[in-house]
């Protein structure tokens, strides 16, 4: 059976395409070189658009002084340029803010690859355009093929010119439309000669350097290929959505291994091209191995740049840690179903390779069914970095230590001489070398080795005090001594760097682990922010602030703010807001608004950007790709945690509102019944009294009694409702003080005198009952409600018992009556709101016991109901006794 399953990734990409409908559409006019007429084509299309009534604005036009082009631009609404002053030079730049403010349907911005002047929001114009698209504005722009990132090296090979301004491939491949503007190279050269492209003075130079026919042919081929690849891609997309005839096949995945070398950037570009042609997904991986600890800062930076480049080119980047580069790379490759691994050809000498092996060789040997592409070093496009292995700062001190150690070893040797064999003195020197290697670098250790051999020869080997050697066998001693000490020093320093990098990673991992552990437990956003800021500061230094987006106003607020409050400066706050809106990092160490003091990372979670992480780094602290990645990992953790609290709050709010809604409807139905019954009686009885007062005093009195009873009933009802509302809506502010239980129950009894009527109430309080530390009014209410309840569910021959006793550390109060018992399961239910046992018993709307429970629990006590033996119910109330009752030992006043 043919399998018509579409590739899920392709579907996703297509979905993304549809989702972008809110985004502006991008059309790119692609040409092989300047002067082919891209801008002209763009302008003439724009005129067409305007004729059709589309709101077109000319955002920016490169001032080349080409008459035909300028004539074409005539009459189009043009956005004023932004004038940027920079060191006495004024430059004109595209005004992004003005464009966003004007918000036309379509905007034309020339030269996609342009680099903005210092002080602009973004370093590159394509970032401006990205922002325009995000704002939903359609953009038409132009670009020459040599500015496409992945073609940079190819173009450099063809023309010998290294292009500095490049645009990520993703922008071109992701464009909604690419129009190739093409003329034959001969015609282009002719146009150049006619002075239609450049001023006459520049023509000759241009013809000699760039506009040679061979160059142009090659560039034209590149431009055409770029366009055909795109068409091919479109056909594939079309087919896959149509569930066409093409069988489903496993997606190719290419992984490029980045090495700490300036060649890695080239490696990444080549891999991108390979991935494009295979329609494969690209992964870029860097193993931050202890082996890499010995590499120069410059090479490390190169690796980081390569990773960033890969990211820009749309690759997924992964940083691994471990000493086994090959093993790590392969296990990742297997995990991710990578089909091809691209690595660079080793540039070291064969001799060195024989000693330490090469990654490429090991990979090829161990890769199994994964293809390995090895790409040659080739032409350098960037300046070759000089290898600097050591930081020069500590040099003089460390060399001094080397000399000192040599002297010390010699002194000890001199002391031992005569009593010990010379071989033992050699051992002393080896110890010295080991110590040096342990405390300083490999270079110092090598120096110490040489010095040791020299000193040994000079001071101990006959003839002494000269470098001459009488016995030839000592030459072997020297050789072996030198070799052994070099080996020791190399092993020691490697061990040391491994230990250092391991402990560093250990610390980072621990911090990350700590963070995620803590975050899974924390509930409030502020706590999460504070903890994350603390951890990030621990690992990265500098100053950290977590800015959380308020869900009401959408504004950012600091949770917490940094100590110096750098992120509160209006400019910095602007950057943070930009980051929040665009979910893209910005600030120092990035390409967007690099002039800011802080680095701002968006906290992106499932539901969007929940906040911004602000870090004011210590200089150079984030130069290392691993650290930037780690920071991003922190940011991700933080984002997830914040989102979790947001969601928890949402779901809490939702359940709360359901509960409130349920209560409201119960209340309404309950109130409509319970309030109306007494009101009906009062109104009716009063009406009768008003109309027919006098002739029948007995009846009048009965009417007055029923008015009074029902009004009283109504009063209790309203009081309970108000109490419940007060207890629920605001955290009750309790006025706790020392109270006598006897007194509280006493006043409750006097308030319920009428209701209790002839029921006998038996009180049993021990004489030494301690005072209780409660809110007197609230507790009196508890007792009133319990008494009312007892009165409601029993009738006069029934009795009420109230008992109190101490069962340290508790005080237990029992309210019992011998009325009807509770049915099974009712013991708990009666404490719910609007719960009544039988609807026909008047009085209250079933809030009394709920109020009791709320009050008792707010005092840290419990209340529950159970059936008495025989018949009746008892309510048991247990309160924690305050341990220290106030002392009255000393009598405060003198007796009179």
């Amino acid at each position: 059976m043919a399998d018509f399953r579409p590739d899920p990734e392709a579907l996703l990409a297509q979905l993304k395409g549809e989702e972008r409908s809110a985004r502006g559409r991008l059309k790119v006019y692609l040409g092989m070189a300047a002067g082919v007429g891209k801008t002209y084509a763009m302008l003439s299309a724009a005129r067409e658009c305007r004729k059709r009534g589309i709101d077109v604005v000319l955002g920016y036009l490169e001032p080349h002084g080409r008459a035909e082009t300028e004539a074409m631009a005539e009459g189009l609404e043009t956005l004023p340029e932004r004038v940027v002053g920079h060191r006495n030079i004024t430059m004109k730049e595209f005004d992004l803010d003005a464009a966003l403010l004007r918000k036309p349907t379509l905007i034309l911005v020339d030269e996609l690859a342009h680099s903005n002047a210092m002080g602009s929001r973004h370093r590159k114009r394509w970032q401006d355009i990205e922002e325009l698209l995000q704002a939903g504005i359609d953009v038409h722009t132009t670009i020459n093929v040599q500015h496409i990132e992945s073609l940079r090296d190819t173009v450099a090979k063809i023309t010998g010119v290294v292009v500095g301004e490049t645009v990520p491939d993703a922008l071109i491949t992701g464009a909604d439309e690419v129009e190739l503007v093409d003329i034959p190279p001969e015609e282009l050269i002719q146009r150049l000669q006619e002075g239609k492209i450049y001023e006459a003075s520049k023509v000759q130079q241009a013809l000699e350097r760039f506009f040679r026919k061979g160059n142009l042919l090659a560039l034209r081929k590149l431009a055409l290929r770029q366009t055909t690849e795109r068409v091919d891609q479109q056909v594939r997309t079309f087919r896959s959505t149509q569930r066409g005839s093409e069988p489903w096949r496993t997606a190719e995945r290419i992984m490029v291994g980045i090495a700490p070398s300036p060649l890695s950037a080239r490696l990444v570009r080549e891999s991108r091209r390979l991935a494009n042609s295979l329609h494969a997904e690209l992964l870029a991986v860097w193993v931050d191995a202890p082996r890499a600890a010995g590499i120069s800062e410059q090479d490390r930076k190169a690796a980081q740049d390569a990773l960033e480049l890969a990211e820009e080119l749309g690759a997924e980047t992964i940083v691994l840690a471990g000493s086994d580069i090959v093993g790590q790379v392969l296990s990742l490759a297997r995990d991710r179903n990578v089909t091809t691994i691209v690595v660079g050809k080793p540039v070291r000498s064969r001799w060195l390779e024989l000693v330490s092996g090469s990654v490429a060789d090991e990979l090829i040997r161990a890769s199994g069914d994964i293809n390995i592409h090895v790409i040659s070093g080739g032409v350098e496009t960037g300046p070759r970095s000089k290898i600097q292995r050591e930081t020069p700062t500590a040099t003089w001190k460390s060399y001094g230590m080397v000399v000192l150690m040599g002297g010390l070893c010699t002194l000890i040797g001199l002391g031992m001489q005569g009593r010990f064999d010379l071989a033992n003195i050699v051992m002393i020197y080896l110890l010295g070398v080991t110590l040096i290697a342990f405390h300083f670098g490999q270079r110092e250790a090598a120096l110490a080795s040489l010095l040791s051999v020299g000193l040994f020869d000079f001071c101990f080997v006959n003839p002494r005090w000269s470098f001459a050697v009488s016995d030839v066998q000592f030459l072997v001693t020297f050789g072996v001594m030198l070799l052994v000490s070099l080996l020791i020093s190399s092993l020691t320093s490697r061990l040391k760097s491994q230990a250092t990098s391991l402990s560093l990673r250990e610390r980072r991992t621990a911090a990350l682990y700590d963070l995620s552990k803590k975050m899974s437990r924390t509930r409030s956003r502020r706590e999460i922010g504070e903890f994350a800021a603390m951890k990030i500061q621990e690992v990265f230094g500098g100053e950290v602030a977590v800015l959380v987006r308020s869900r009401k106003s959408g504004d950012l607020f600091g949770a917490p703010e940094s100590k110096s409050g750098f992120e509160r400066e209006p400019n910095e706050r602007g950057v943070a807001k930009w980051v929040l809106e665009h979910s893209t990092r910005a600030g120092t160490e990035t390409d967007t608004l690099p002039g800011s003091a802080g680095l701002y990372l968006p906290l992106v979670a499932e539901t969007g950007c929940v906040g911004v992480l602000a870090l004011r780094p210590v200089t150079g602290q984030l130069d290392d790709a691993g650290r930037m990645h780690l920071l991003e990992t922190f940011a991700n953790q933080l984002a997830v945690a914040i989102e979790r609290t947001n969601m928890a709050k949402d779901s809490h709010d939702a359940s709360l509102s359901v509960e409130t809604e349920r209560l409201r409807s119960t209340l309404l139905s309950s109130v409509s019944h319970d309030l109306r019954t007494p009101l009906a009686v009062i109104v009716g009885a009063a009406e009768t009294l008003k109309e027919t007062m006098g002739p029948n005093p007995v009846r009048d009195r009965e009417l007055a009694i029923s008015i009074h009873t029902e009004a009283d009933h109504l009063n209790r009802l309203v009081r309970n409702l108000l109490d419940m509302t007060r207890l629920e809506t605001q955290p009750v502010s309790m006025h706790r003080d020392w109270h006598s239980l006897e007194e509280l129950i006493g006043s409750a009894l006097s308030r319920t005198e009428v209701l209790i009527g002839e029921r006998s109430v038996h009180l049993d309080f021990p004489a030494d009952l301690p005072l209780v530390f409660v809110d007197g009014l609230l507790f009196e209410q508890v007792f009133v409600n319990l008494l009312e309840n007892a009165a409601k569910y029993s009738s006069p021959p029934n009795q009420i018992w109230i008992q109190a006793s101490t069962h340290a550390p508790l005080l237990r109060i029992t309210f019992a009556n011998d009325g009807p018992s509770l049915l099974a399961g009712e013991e708990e239910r009666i404490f719910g709101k609007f719960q009544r046992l039988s609807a026909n018993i008047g009085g209250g709307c079933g809030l009394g016991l709920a109020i009791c429970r709320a009050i008792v629990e707010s005092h840290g006590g419990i209340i529950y109901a159970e059936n008495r033996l025989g018949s009746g119910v008892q309510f048991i109330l247990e309160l924690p006794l305050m341990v220290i009752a106030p002392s009255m030992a000393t009598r405060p006043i003198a007796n009179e």
Partner: protein
Amino acid sequence: MNDLKTILIVDDELAIRRFLRASLSDGFSLFEAETGAQAIQGVARQNPDLMLLDLGLPDMDGLEVTRQVREWSLVPIIILSARGQEQDKILALDAGADDYLTKPFAIGELQARIRAALRHAKAPQGTGAIFSSQGLEVDHVARRVTVRGTEIKLTPIEYRLLSELVRHAGLVLTHRHLLTHVWGPEYADEMHYLRVYMGQLRHKLETEPARPQHLITEPGVGYRLRVVE
């Protein structure tokens, strides 16, 4: 002028005023005020024998009225208020009001309070040498306390507490008032002294201490010695 006592009723609710008018017109001469300002003017112009004052008035609260009136007048003031305003009641009592009633109240209760306040206004230092109510007798001269003829031994503090209540018989006394007058101003917040001694006093004077007939608790505010004529 006849010998009817005059009462100024201050409440912004017509219903309450109508009800008070209907209930009190039999034994008193009444006039009314709706706002705090009117109340102060009323006290100044009519010089009533007593004022019934609602705590919640449209222009200023009853507490403020009490303070202003107390600057120049000793007219007995009874506060009318809703439940839950205990703090306001205490403030008003401390500011010089003589008593309070919680709405809704029974008219009999109101009349008893009015009588007590008027009596106290006439003889502010107490009811004479001997106080007597419901079998409880306090002889200030002999410092003797008897319940239905049986002499009760009281400690000095218990006696001072009782005599302070007797001096204001029928009226509420705040916790603070009792603490400062019996123990001294520095004991104004030592509530537990009062609770313990009140408990002891009740056990000595009441037949059923949990259902006192003389020493009545005013929840959240203070105590009152009940007078039954």
